[in-house]
């Protein structure tokens, strides 16, 4: 069994990370009734005996759970968020050796995060990560969580990505990046996002982009359903994608509902690697199957169902509805419509009481309405995990490598150009040591060439390309 390390950077990264650890504990508590520290738990947690005199505690393999510590590194250049976590109910899950904080923050400036703090803290970051890695039997993956619009998350986060690639080149890097919506309140967020995107395109193995606006829409949809008051529409409170009920932390904070969705995304992504099933799907299989060309590694994700109905007398929503929903644009975690764009590859990770025949039937049913690239007409990767998430009997995570990310990137480029044409706010960046205008033009050209690659694939969408002619053998 492999282990993964979560590196959460910046305010957004840490808040999402906090929700992730809460929900992970909830999920394992639900499954692991006997309190034994098993392989599934060890993928994200260490079992530590804290009674020893040295502050750190030593790792115990197997046996009863003593004290769980998360395999995480928390990085933030201001103290508020991390302090809040350390004073909250999750404080025992982290120890002081996993944190890196500073006082003044990055001022929403990518350059400050990437260059100034990046250089100042790079050694410490590497040391912390290395320590966490040494405690892993077999490290498979780094999960990096940060936002793109701010300064620390996007700047220092992308620097961390660089460091991880240099120090641990064989370990896969999966980045959950929260992209700013158009109505973002940080004016320089387009600059930060485009500068960070270049790093993501070059150094990440795969990126799961998430947009705040989509999360808000999903939250509203669930709340609307919960409060609609229609008889027979009462939802089980702990089953919604946004609920943290049953977790360790008490009252929900403002962004919690949205962050719970992202936390659930990560849990479902790793479910087949942690729990058993009839068709396992490990994390390295995700990067293998969904990334046909090295730079095109942006995966659009969707989670269904959003909730379970509480009234058990009502027949459970048909399984097929869950599959249909996964492809609808309301369920995607970025504002995109994959159904009307071109699929390069698609992965379906099913959890719970679903059999291979249900999976096949739904693939057959949905396939005609989807456009797949000509050389990958049957481009499906499927995984079946037998353990369902808390509150559901089954669930589906769909990951698509689809050209529908192109409009998102084009919009980002538009917003960037609006500021860049006027050189607005540029001086804040250029004042930082090591930054020059060249960085901006390079980042812009990286984004443009990425968009161009997606466009070229899009152009093949409606063409009926003939099959490549086969090798001929003399008979």
């Amino acid at each position, binding site marked *: 069994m492999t282990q993964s390390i979560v590196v959460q950077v910046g305010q957004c990264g840490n808040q999402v990370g906090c929700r992730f650890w809460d929900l992970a504990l909830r999920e394992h508590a639900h499954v692991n009734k006997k309190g034994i520290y098993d392989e599934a738990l060890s993928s994200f947690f260490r079992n530590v005996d804290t009674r020893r005199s040295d502050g750190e505690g030593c790792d115990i393999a197997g046996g009863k759970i003593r004290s769980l510590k998360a395999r995480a590194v928390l990085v933030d250049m201001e103290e508020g968020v991390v302090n809040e976590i350390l004073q909250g109910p999750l404080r025992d899950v982290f120890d002081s050796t996993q944190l890196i904080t500073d006082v003044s923050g990055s001022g929403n400036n990518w350059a400050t995060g990437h260059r100034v703090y990046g250089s100042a803290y790079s050694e410490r970051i590497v040391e912390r990560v290395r320590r966490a890695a040494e405690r892993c039997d077999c490290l498979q993956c780094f999960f990096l969580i940060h936002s793109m619009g701010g300064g620390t998350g996007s700047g220092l986060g992308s620097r961390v990505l660089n460091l991880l690639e240099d120090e641990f080149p064989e370990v896969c890097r999966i980045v959950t990046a929260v992209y700013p919506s158009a109505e973002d309140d940080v004016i320089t967020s387009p600059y930060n996002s485009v500068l960070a995107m270049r790093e993501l395109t070059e150094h990440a193995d795969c990126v799961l982009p998430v947009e705040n606006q989509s999360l808000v829409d999903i939250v509203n949809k669930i709340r609307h359903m919960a409060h609609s008051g229609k008889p027979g529409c009462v939802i089980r409170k702990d089953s919604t994608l946004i609920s943290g009920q049953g977790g360790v932390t008490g009252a929900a904070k403002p962004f919690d509902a949205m962050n719970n969705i992202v936390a659930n995304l990560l849990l479902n992504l790793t479910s087949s690697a942690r729990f058993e099933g009839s068709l396992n799907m490990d994390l390295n299989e995700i990067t*293998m199957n969904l990334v046909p060309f090295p730079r095109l590694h942006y995966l659009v994700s969707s989670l269904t169902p959003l909730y379970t109905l509480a009234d058990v007398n009502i027949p459970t929503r048909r399984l097929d509805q869950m599959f249909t929903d996964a492809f609808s644009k309301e369920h995607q975690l970025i504002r995109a419509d994959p159904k009307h764009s071109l699929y390069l590859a698609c992965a379906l990770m099913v959890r719970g009481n679903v059999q291979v025949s249900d999976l096949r039937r739904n693939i057959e049913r949905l396939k005609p309405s989807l456009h797949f690239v000509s*050389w990958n007409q049957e481009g499906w990767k499927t995984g079946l995990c037998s353990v369902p998430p808390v509150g559901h009997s089954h669930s589906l995570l769909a990951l698509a490598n689809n050209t529908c990310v192109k409009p998102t990137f084009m919009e980002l480029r538009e917003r960037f150009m609006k500021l860049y044409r006027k050189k607005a706010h540029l001086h804040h960046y250029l004042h930082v040591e090591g930054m020059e205008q060249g960085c901006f033009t390079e980042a812009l050209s990286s984004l443009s060439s990425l968009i161009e690659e997606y466009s070229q694939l899009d152009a093949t969408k409606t063409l009926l390309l003939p*099959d490549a002619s086969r090798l001929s053998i003399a008979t």
Partner: protein
Amino acid sequence: MSVVTVQLGQCGNQIGQELFDVISNDSNDARTCSPRAQGKAYHACSQERFFNEEASGDPSARAVLIDMEPKVITRTIATAAKSGRWKYGEQSFFCQKQGSGNNWANGFRVHGPRHQEAMGDLVRREVERCDRLAGILTMMSVAGGTGSGVGTYVTQCLRDDYPHTFILNQLTWPYCTGEVIVQNYNSVLTLSHLYQYSDAILVHENDAVHRICAQLMNIKHISFSDVNKVIAHQLGSVLQPAHTGHTHSQYSRNPMGELMSSLVCHPEYKLLSLCTIPQMASSSLPYSAFFWPGLLKHLRQMLICSARMEEGIDWQVRAPSVGQGAAETRGIRELGFNTSLANLLILRGKDVSSADTGGFLDPALYCPWLPAEGAISTWRSPLPFNKYEKSATLVSNSQSLLKPLDHMVGKAWNMFASRAYIHQYTKFGISEEDFLDCFTCLEQVISSYRYL
């Protein structure tokens, strides 16, 4: 004579466990049925072939379980132990922490060589516990990374370590609509390499078995466990003891050798397909009665039109009659007629000696350059198999796998033309030239079968 089974990857391990289950149940049933002496001989032969007698406790399977991550092996060993009738040897497994990531190159170039010694030792230990080794059976899928990549490497090592032993590779081909996106690449790489080292390649297709489950066995929600049980039933009917042509009163001492010599007469033609008749839900078994003429007639037609199950057979396809001109014969071949190189019929059950296999002696079924009498062999066993009063299995070296193979190579070639995913393979040392070599090898195989 004993058979050592090597189970590789998730698929290989899951099917392997079902296979041993079927074999164990069947031989235990045989012990209690009449005539007593025959049943006991069957049981003894099957036990010797597949299990080690343990001093205490249940017999342990002559098997080695290999996977690059631990979840499946743990589950497989636990399920076997729960059956209470047999188990896997405590030390007979090898696993690592991290899987092969569906990457053939990772399995073949990295995991295989790295763990060659450990895996080789496990197989050697099992082989040494056999009095006489009949052959090695490897079970794997071609779509994933471990089964296909590590499995190919292991087969290569087995061929080097045991040059005079028969190696039979049982392969499971994935659903055409995709279980793994790079499944066609992995399949092409596996088949082209295996063709050099293996003695015979026995293929099961998930699509075909799924249809059997859906239409014949009436299973509503088909799970992989159901699919695996059908495959195990078909394999069991081939591997369990039978009277082959040479030994009429004793069970064959050399099942794998006889299988190979009946079916694989030319190194260019190694692909074998299986079909079994009847296949039905176990609940319907007590209410059904079958007769040999009917079973054999259906089986013959299934062979001719490449059907894998006895429903929806196309009775329009007919063998060309002897004396027809070459052009007409070719015309009939175009219509989906399946030419065979060689066939092996295995009949099990009541009144088996009265079963008339004359229909299979028709020279029109076979390619012209082999005499028909040499192309068909029959094995018989008077005892029922796996609760079926009568059952007939046909192992066939014919054109029936031509279409799926062609389809698979075509898809892989299309993907290769756009160089998609190639960077994932070159990362581990499989270059584009290696791919081209594999494609060439398989095109050659396709061409050989097409012009049978």
